[in-house]
């Protein structure tokens, strides 16, 4: 008589946490603390904090392609640039178009998402190094395009006099205005990326990463799910670009070099591939480190490079490895099995 009960027990999911609030509280602490203490920082550290948050969001976005699907994208900055130029062109004196920020955020992110799909269709047959090279090329194409489309983008001089952003009657001009916006973005993107990881889409992407042919054999339409990953990832990158342009109120092609793509890849590689916490930690380190090394002016890049090499050698899977993600934390603090 006890057998039905015993059979049902494992089906209910051995990994489910008993309590949800401890994990949720721990994770909420980060944005709450940022919102409480962030605005009291002096201007310079506050700007750095904003950059850290921006790169954390970029890292979360790129993680969908690189961390979950295992496709090395070295041209992520292209999507960022598309977003940035969307705001620069649609809210400035350049063509005397002045669209509202929320609308451009949607347009920029969607354009980037579309570019992700258009890029994805031809290149997603490629894997590994070949994909990396093509995406790197795409990043450069977008930059060179911005550089040479003088009439539209002002070429290398870039676009200045970009509008001040207004979001539902709230003016975004100072670094602490952007802190609120970026913390909100971080929370939304974090939850979205975590949700992907836990959903069937995340399962499909992981399978593509582990063994693409076996995944197809299991019925996964690998091309489609990779396209979806590319689109989501590009969408987030585009959104970050819009915010970046609104923050700087100036864009030029030199903000979107290969170096930027590399930094975003490093954010997730150093932090921990496929781990949303890793993107946060990686962004913190990669943005903070050069600032701390400012005192050593000439040797700054040398020390920066050495620090990265040491981190990668000591922890090849990144500082926080894949399995210690938000779900693990929820289980850990919620009293479930780990």
């Amino acid at each position, binding site marked *: 008589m006890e057998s039905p009960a015993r*059979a049902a027990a494992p*089906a209910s999911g051995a990994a489910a946490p008993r309590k949800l609030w401890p994990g949720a509280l721990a994770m909420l602490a980060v944005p709450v603390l940022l919102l409480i203490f962030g605005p009291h920082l002096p201007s310079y550290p506050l700007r750095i904090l904003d950059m850290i948050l921006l790169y954390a969001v970029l890292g979360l976005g790129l993680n969908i392609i690189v961390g979950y699907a295992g496709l090395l994208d070295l041209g992520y900055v292209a999507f960022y640039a598309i977003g940035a130029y969307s705001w620069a062109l649609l809210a400035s004196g350049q063509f005397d178009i002045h669209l509202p920020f929320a609308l451009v955020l949607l347009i920029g992110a969607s354009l980037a998402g579309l570019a992700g799909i258009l890029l994805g269709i031809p290149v997603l047959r490629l894997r590994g190094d070949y994909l990396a090279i093509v995406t790197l090329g795409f990043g450069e194409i977008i930059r060179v395009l911005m550089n040479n489309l003088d009439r539209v983008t002002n070429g290398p001089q870039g676009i200045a006099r970009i509008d001040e952003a207004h979001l539902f009657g709230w003016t975004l001009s100072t670094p602490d205005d952007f802190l609120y916006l970026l913390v909100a973005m971080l929370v939304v993107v974090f939850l979205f990326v975590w949700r992907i990881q836990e959903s069937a*889409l995340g399962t499909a992407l992981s399978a593509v990463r582990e063994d693409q042919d076996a995944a197809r*054999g299991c019925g996964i339409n690998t091309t489609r*799910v990779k396209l979806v990953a590319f689109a989501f990832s590009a969408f987030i990158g585009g959104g970050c670009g819009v915010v970046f342009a609104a923050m700087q109120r100036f864009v030029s092609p030199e903000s979107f070099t290969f170096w930027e793509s590399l930094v975003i890849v490093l954010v997730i590689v150093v932090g921990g591939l496929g781990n949303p916490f890793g993107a946060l930690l990686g962004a913190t380190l990669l943005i903070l480190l050069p600032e701390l090394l400012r005192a050593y002016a000439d040797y700054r890049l040398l020390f920066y490079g050495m620090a990265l090499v040491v981190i990668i050698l000591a922890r090849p899977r990144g500082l926080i490895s894949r399995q210690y993600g938000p779900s693990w934390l929820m289980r850990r603090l919620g009293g479930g099995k780990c």
Partner: protein
Amino acid sequence: MLTFDHVTKRFGELAAIDDVSFEVKPGIITAVIGPNGAGKSTLVNMAAGSYGVTSGRILVDGVELQKLPKHRIAHAGLSRTYQNIRLFDGMSVVKNLEVALVPPRVGSLIANTFGLSGRAAAEERRARCHAVLERLGLAAHAERQAGSLAYGQQKLVELARAIVAEPRVLLLDEPAAGLNHGETEQLKQHILALRSPDLAMVLIEHDMKLIMSISDIIVVMNRGQLLAQGTAAEIRSNTEVQEAYLGQPGAIKDIEAAARGRRNRVRLREGEGLTWHQP
């Protein structure tokens, strides 16, 4: 039912499969045997969509597989295991199984991601995976990383992944390769337990003892052609089959006799009958 209908596969000049036709019926276990290079694996790889078909048709319940992209073949009801284990090593065992149950439509995948639909369906998929793991004695390993399991367990996880979507055709490509006696015996019980009126099973194996003890029908391939098919007893007494394996008719008896008489170094293990070993 799986049907091979005048299937030919050429690699350049070489016909790896040459006009092969046979049917694999549901409810029974059909073994495909033959020496190395006979075309057994090519047959499996064509059915699963890894290789294209040069000519002919491969059908699952009337659906032509050779026209479908590889991922649609799984949706048509065919699943397989691999000669060399191909699990998703970095994922947990239960996630490995869930891959086989991912909804086929990308639209519903996106809707699920945004939490718009499919919560109950996701729970149900997970429950199905746990039920299959339970059935194969893997419940305790559900949350472990697939790559960290012992070889024999990995083989079972692969079997679990292949059956969780309740296929109509199951291709087992050397499931016993590399397993020890106890594990092979366990595998045999699991395979026998899978027999159902809705499932056509194809077994490719080199372990003749296993084949003779669980196959209802044996199909013998040689040099890309169908040599014979029949029950284990029929195949055992088929002179053509003996010739293909050993060069001349009656050779099995000669060797068995030689081994029993210990007149030379050919040995057979007690009760095993003839085995042949791959180089």
